[in-house]
């Protein structure tokens, strides 16, 4: 019998609650704002004996990811969490975790990368490692981060996937804001994630394996080919886990979650907390008779280009929101994926990219309205004008 309780929790507390219920064997973490409240709460669970976890309070994020890799390769369920420069310091080992096919779950509380140093939200940290071989789930709310964290365990450990998963939520905006979240009972979560026994664990000493050998031109490429395949195979598996979990929580969970898209003349594609602002503005504009819509990206890696194309090909104009910049590229990371997904469609939207919210710059209702107004102009004129625009920055 599934029990659900409404609790007033921050996004960070939601994730800590998920971690308590997952009860991982090993958590290795290092402090960084705004991730720290996750570890504060989790440390309390450890101190109160509410989890059996070995909590390894390492001396750097590099060691956090390194110890997590060791713990996962040993055969245990291992988790960590970080933000921004912490993720950057882990960089090298983030790739190693994926190429070693270790089902690690890491919460990333998105924060702008230095420099100059900034502690507030943007997606430059997780977007920077979008090619590292991790599955990436983005969360609009604390409750979604809670859901994503629980589902991430199942996705990562699926025998046909065996890839690490990054669960992202917006620093401060989500991590530090209290909202009402529906929390499942412990038993339901425990049953949902199941037991973990590791894939070729080091601790199965009677069957000694060599993990992380020198892999030169003879086989490196074959191992990369396997990683490409795993990402592709993960797509239907992720959706089936979404469906299974969605039935428990009573929600439809998808790679791309549409809002008022069917008859939309202008739509915006966005990740994480800004979707809340955009949905509010869609409602307001709909009241004025404007046919506008929103598409929330929940899964950025693997990126399901076919599904996206199917959902947006009929819309005349699409604005793509990027909370990170790809310097010197044609638009931000989300824009590039969207353009790529629709490139071969005979009927496709005009697209405009908005780089917004860097370093925690507030994303306001006015900015959202401005986006929809500009998209209408593009539709009416049939001319996208400047395709990559910045939003909310002073001239």
């Amino acid at each position, binding site marked *: 019998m599934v029990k659900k309780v409404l609790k007033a929790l921050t996004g960070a507390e939601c994730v800590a609650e998920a971690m308590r219920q997952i009860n991982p064997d090993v958590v290795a973490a290092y402090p960084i704002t705004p991730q720290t409240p996750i570890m504060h709460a989790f440390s309390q669970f450890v101190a109160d004996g509410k989890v059996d976890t070995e909590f390894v309070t390492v001396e750097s994020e590099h060691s956090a990811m390194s110890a997590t890799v060791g713990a996962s390769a040993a055969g245990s369920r291992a988790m960590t969490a970080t933000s921004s420069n912490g993720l950057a310091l882990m960089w090298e080992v983030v790739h190693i975790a994926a190429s070693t096919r270790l089902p690690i779950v890491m919460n990333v509380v998105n924060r702008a990368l230095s420099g100059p140093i900034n502690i507030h939200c943007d997606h430059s940290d997780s977007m920077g490692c979008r090619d590292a071989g991790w599955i990436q789930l983005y969360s609009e709310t604390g409750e979604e981060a809670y859901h994503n964290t629980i589902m991430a365990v199942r996705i990562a450990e699926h025998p046909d996937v065996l890839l690490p998963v990054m669960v992202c939520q917006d620093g401060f905006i989500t991590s530090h804001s209290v909202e009402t979240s529906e929390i499942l009972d412990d038993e339901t979560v425990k049953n949902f994630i199941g037991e973990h026994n590791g894939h070729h664990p080091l601790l199965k000493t009677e069957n000694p394996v060599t993990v992380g050998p020198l892999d030169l031109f003879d*086989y490196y490429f*074959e191992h990369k080919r*396997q990683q490409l395949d795993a990402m592709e195979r993960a797509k239907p598996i992720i959706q089936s886990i979404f469906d299974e979990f969605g039935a428990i929580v009573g929600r439809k969970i998808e790679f791309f979650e549409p809002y008022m898209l069917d008859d939309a003349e202008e739509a915006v594609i966005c990740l994480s907390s800004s979707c809340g602002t955009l949905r509010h503005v869609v409602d307001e504009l709909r009241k004025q008779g404007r046919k506008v819509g929103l598409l929330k990206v929940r899964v950025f890696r693997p990126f399901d280009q076919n599904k996206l194309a199917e959902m947006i090909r009929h819309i005349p104009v699409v604005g793509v929101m990027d909370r990170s910049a790809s310097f010197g590229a044609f638009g931000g990371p989300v824009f590039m994926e969207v353009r790529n997904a629709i490139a071969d469609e005979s009927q496709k939207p005009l697209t405009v990219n908005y780089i917004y919210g860097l370093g925690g710059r507030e994303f306001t209702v006015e900015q959202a309205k401005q986006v929809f107004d500009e998209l209408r102009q593009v539709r009416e004129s049939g001319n996208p004008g400047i395709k990559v625009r910045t939003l909310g920055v002073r001239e």
Partner: protein
Amino acid sequence: MVTENHDKKGWKEIPIGGIIEEAGNAERYKTGTWRSFRPVHHPEKCTNCMICWVNCPDTAIKAGDVNSPDKGLVGKNDDPNLANFGGFDYEHCKGCGICAAVCPTKAIDMHPETEFLDKEGEE
């Protein structure tokens, strides 16, 4: 030795994650071909002290038992709980010469492989 590209396995045939499942399979890689000097053992000088064995970086000195045909002949050797000199693993010996250098009774000396070429023709 290294096989040609077409002999190598495809991406569907190898374990994921770069894991090597077969412990110690490097034994199939024959480093003995590197050797330019060959250690030669003289049982009449050997006490089976196993100092050569412990110092060998290539696990190329075998630990023999009481029936080892290569065992040293100096002193008492025939205790089943103790190893005797068990000969060289020429498939892996790289010919570094450490065994000859550390042998306290000079029961091993190094000879150029060319000496054996002459005797054995093709080796």
